[in-house]
C-alpha cells in the first residue's frame, strides 16, 4: 500500500526542508511534549532567533484516542464515557451537550423534566468552576506564582468531592444520560452545595487580591499575545478566548438551550483594563468573572431545586429514557458552551445495511451513528497560536499558551 502520488507528500517535504534550512541561520527548539507548561502532551517546534520566536509549529496527536472511530462503532449511550474523556476537566459539560444533541435528534428534548435539566445545569456549572480554577491556578504556575495554584486546587477539591458524591467518580462522571440522569442527587446535596457556595463566594475576591491585581502578574500578561477580534472570529476561537477579545458571544445566551433562558447571568468580556483588549490578562480575567457568574447560576438552580422542583419519592430520573436510541436518518450539528468554548457534535445517522438469512439486502434501524465529528473548542483555540505568537519572546510564549487554556484530551480526541 505505497502511495506513489507525490502531490500528497509535498507539504511534508516542504516542512522538512524548512526545518533543515532553519538549522543554519536560526535555532530550532523543541518545546514539549514533556514540558510542564505545555499543559499536557503538546509539542511546539519553535524556530527562534535568540530569544525571539520567529515561527511556532504545533505538533499534536500524542493523546489521540480515536474518539470518532469509537463513536462509529458504539451506540449513543455507550459513547457518553468517551465524551467525558475529551475535555476531562469539564466532563459534565461534554456529556450534557452530547446528550442534548441526541435528544434533539430523537425529538424528546421537550419532554425532559425540569428537575433533570436543573440538576444538569447545576453540575455543569460546578464543573465549569472547577475547570476555570485549574486554568487560573496553572496559569499562575506557568508564570511563576505558586500560591494561587494551591488555593485554586483547595477549592476545586470541594467540587470534586461533591461531584464524586453525585456520580461515584472524581473526574469522569458518566452522570448525564440521554433522556435522564444516572441517579437523582443524593439526599442532602443541595444543602452541602449551599454551604460550598457560601464558603466559595469570598474566594474570588481573595484570588483577585493575590493574582489579578498583582503587578508582576500584570507585567507578564498585559499587552502580551493580543488576539484581535477579527482574527479570533476567523480562526474559530470561542469561549473565554473570544470573549477576552471583547465580543459578547456565549452560546448559553445565543442559542438559549436547556434552562439557561430562565436563569439570570451576565456574559463577562475583556475590556483591556490594564492593557489592550484581547491580551492574556483579559482572557484570564474573563475566566475569573465567569466563576462569579457560575456561582450565580448555581444559586438560582439551588433555589428552584429546593422549592418548586423539590425531590419527591416517586421522582425517577430514568423515567423518560428511551429504551432504544434510534433516531430517524438525518444529520444534525449541535453546539453548546463548554468550559473552553463552543463544543459541537455533528451526527450523521443512517440506517444500517444488512443481509438477512435469505441473502436479501435490507435497511435496519440502528443505535450506532454513521459518522460523528467532534468540534472541540480547544482544537480551534489552539490553532490560532502560530498566528498570535509570531515574533514574541520565548517567555511570553508560555504566557500565551497558558492563557489559551486548552486541554489536550480535547485537542487530540
Amino acid at each position: 500500500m505505497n502511495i506513489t502520488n507525490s502531490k500528497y507528500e509535498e507539504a511534508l517535504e516542504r516542512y522538512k526542508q524548512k526545518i533543515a534550512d532553519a538549522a543554519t541561520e536560526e535555532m530550532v527548539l523543541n518545546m514539549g511534549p514533556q514540558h510542564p507548561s505545555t499543559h499536557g502532551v503538546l509539542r511546539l517546534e519553535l524556530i527562534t532567533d535568540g530569544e525571539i520566536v520567529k515561527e511556532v509549529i504545533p505538533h499534536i496527536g500524542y493523546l489521540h484516542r480515536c474518539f470518532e472511530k469509537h463513536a462509529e462503532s458504539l451506540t449513543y449511550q455507550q459513547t457518553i464515557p468517551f465524551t467525558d474523556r475529551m475535555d476531562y476537566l469539564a466532563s459534565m459539560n461534554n456529556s450534557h451537550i452530547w446528550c442534548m444533541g441526541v435528544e434533539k435528534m430523537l425529538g424528546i428534548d421537550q419532554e425532559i423534566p425540569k428537575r433533570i435539566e436543573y440538576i444538569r445545569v447545576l453540575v455543569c456549572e460546578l464543573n465549569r468552576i472547577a475547570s476555570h480554577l485549574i486554568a487560573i491556578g496553572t496559569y499562575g504556575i506557568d508564570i511563576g506564582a505558586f500560591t494561587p495554584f494551591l488555593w485554586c486546587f483547595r477549592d476545586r477539591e470541594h467540587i470534586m468531592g461533591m461531584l464524586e458524591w453525585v456520580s461515584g467518580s472524581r473526574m469522569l462522571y458518566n452522570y448525564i444520560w440521554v433522556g435522564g440522569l444516572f441517579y437523582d442527587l443524593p439526599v442532602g446535596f443541595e444543602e452541602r452545595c449551599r454551604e460550598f457556595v457560601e464558603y466559595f463566594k469570598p474566594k474570588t475576591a481573595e484570588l483577585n487580591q493575590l493574582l489579578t491585581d498583582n503587578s508582576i502578574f500584570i507585567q507578564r500578561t498585559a499587552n502580551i499575545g493580543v488576539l484581535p477580534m477579527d482574527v479570533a472570529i476567523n480562526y474559530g476561537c470561542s469561549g473565554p478566548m473570544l470573549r477576552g477579545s471583547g465580543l459578547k458571544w456565549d452560546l448559553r445566551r445565543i442559542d438559549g438551550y436547556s434552562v439557561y433562558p430562565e436563569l439570570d447571568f451576565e456574559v463577562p468580556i475583556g475590556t483591556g483594563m490594564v492593557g489592550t483588549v484581547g491580551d492574556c490578562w483579559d482572557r484570564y480575567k474573563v475566566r475569573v468573572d465567569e466563576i462569579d457568574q457560575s456561582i450565580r447560576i448555581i444559586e438560582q438552580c439551588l433555589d428552584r431545586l429546593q422549592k418548586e422542583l423539590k425531590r419527591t419519592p416517586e421522582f425517577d430520573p430514568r423515567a423518560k429514557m428511551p429504551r432504544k436510541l434510534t433516531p430517524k436518518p438525518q444529520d444534525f450539528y449541535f453546539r453548546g458552551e463548554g468550559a473552553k468554548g463552543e463544543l459541537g457534535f455533528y451526527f450523521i445517522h443512517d440506517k444500517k445495511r444488512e443481509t438477512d438469512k435469505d441473502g436479501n439486502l435490507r435497511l435496519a434501524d440502528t443505535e450506532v451513528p454513521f459518522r460523528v465529528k467532534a468540534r472541540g473548542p480547544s482544537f480551534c483555540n489552539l490553532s490560532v497560536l502560530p498566528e498570535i505568537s509570531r515574533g514574541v519572546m520565548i517567555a511570553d510564549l508560555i504566557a500565551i499558551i497558558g492563557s489559551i487554556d486548552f486541554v489536550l484530551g480535547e485537542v487530540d480526541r
Partner: protein
Amino acid sequence: MSFEQIKLLLIAKFGEDVIVGEETGGLQPALLIDPDRIIDVCRELRDNPKTYFDFLSCLTGVDYGVEDGRFGVVYHLASIPYQTQLTLKVSKENDRNEDELPSFPSITSIYGAADWHEREAYEMIGMFFEGHPDLRKLLLPDDWEGYPLRKDYTTVDKYYKGIKID
C-alpha cells in the same frame, strides 16, 4: 436571512448551477454546492452584509460508504452578527484508489479555522484540499498508512514498527 433567501441570493449571484440540490427534511436544512465553486460561495456568504457568515463552526470530511462511492465535506457556518447557522455540503464520487484521492478546494483563504480541520479530514478520510498551505498529517504520525475513518479501513498489518497489534 432565511434559508430560502440565502438560496436565492446565491442563485442571483452565481447562477442556477452553483446549487446542485438541497436537503430540507431534517432539523437543519443544508445546501448542496458545486464543489468547484465552494470558495466563491463561502467568500460571498462571509462578506455579504446581508449574511455575514463569518464563523466556521465545524468542517467535517465524510466517507458515505463503499456502496455509495461518494466523499463529501460538510461546512457548518455561523453568523455572529445575525446569530444564524447554515450548513453547506459538497461531494464527489471517487473509486477509492489511494493514488487519486477525492479533491476539494481548500477554504483556508476564507476561514483560518479550516486549516486544521482540513488537515484532519485529509489524514482521516483521505481527501485532498487544493490550495491548502500546509497539508500535512495532523493527529497521526507522518508515516501512517491508510485513512482510518474510511468505511473500508482495516488494519492489515499485524505489526506497526515491530509492535504487535492485537
